[in-house]
């Protein structure tokens, strides 16, 4: 199971347990039923409900385990078995050719203040690991918000003996591209240098 799906299931289990307790159920987590472990057993009055949380991509590998789990749960006197199926958030693929180069060039032309604060001689090497969190296409252009990482070399020391220290920092961006993919405006280009200051 991937860590992301593991996390998704764990988070759902936690929320579900809290919700059931709020509704007056007594909740037992990781209930042992024979050689099986049921995520949650919720009891109230004569009701005894088993809950199992499964990420949809895990169903394929867990079909047999689920069959045994359901069978064992009813054998233990469970009145109802509920399988809660969760799915990872839908991911949209967005790619804008040359965006890394555009952002790198913009930073080279006007280095962000936080980098200049670290060193007046900062060299922007490259930009990468871009993740676009929002995109809006209007008649004015393409409005983009996201995050990335910038690789820099900072000059430290005197001009002749200056040492170049390489480093990588995360940054946030909010820019407007023209429909021809030229950079029209950079409303935000904030490089987080807190890791350097630590």
């Amino acid at each position, binding site marked *: 199971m991937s860590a992301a799906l593991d996390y998704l299931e764990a988070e759902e289990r936690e929320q579900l347990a809290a919700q059931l307790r709020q509704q007056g159920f007594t909740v037992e987590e990781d209930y042992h039923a024979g050689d099986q472990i049921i995520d949650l057993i919720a009891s109230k009055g004569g009701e005894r409900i088993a809950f199992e949380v499964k990420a949809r991509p895990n169903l*394929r590998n867990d079909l047999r385990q689920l*069959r045994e789990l*359901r069978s064992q749960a*009813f054998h233990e006197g469970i009145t109802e078995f509920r*399988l*809660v*199926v969760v*799915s990872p958030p839908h991911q949209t693929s967005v790619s804008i050719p040359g965006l890394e180069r555009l952002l790198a060039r913009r930073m080279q032309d006007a280095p962000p203040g936080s980098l200049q604060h670290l060193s007046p001689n900062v060299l922007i090497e490259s930009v990468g690991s871009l993740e676009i969190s929002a995109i809006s296409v209007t008649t004015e252009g393409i409005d983009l918000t996201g995050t990335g990482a910038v690789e820099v070399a900072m000059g430290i020391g005197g001009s002749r003996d200056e040492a170049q220290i390489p480093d990588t920092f995360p940054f946030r961006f909010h820019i407007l591209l023209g429909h021809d993919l030229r950079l029209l405006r950079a409303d935000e280009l904030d490089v987080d240098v807190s890791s350097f200051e630590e």
Partner: protein
Amino acid sequence: MVIPAATDESPFALLLPIRPISSGSGGKQRFQERIRAAATEAFGGRARLRGSLYARITYLHLQPAMQDVDNLIKRILDAMKGIVFDDDGEVRQCLAERIAVADRFTIAERRRPSGIVDRLLEFLAEGQPHITYIEVGHAARQALSFGPIGEEEQ
């Protein structure tokens, strides 16, 4: 895939990896023939259900769907006429719903594990884009209820 009902006492149940065709859209005949064939295979030999009946129709879809659930009912009930029951006028309760499987949803079983759930989980694991579940049985009682359907389920 046809899931035969377990006993004569059990409701009639069918689970098919198909998209229901709503009334008003094309492909009506082929869709109804498929339902009829599956119903005959699953229900053949049993006495038709008589009296006050309920029908439950659930469409599970992987991709976003805009299908009106109220349109699902007529074609499915029409297709089962003469096989599962004599007259769809006997169906006095009907629940039609659609479930987006890309969102969180719950499958609930009561009393004992169901073969339908085994098959449903197989379909889901295979990534079937369309799954239709049809169940018809004897209506339990007449009762006027208020509030969201299925709100008791988490």
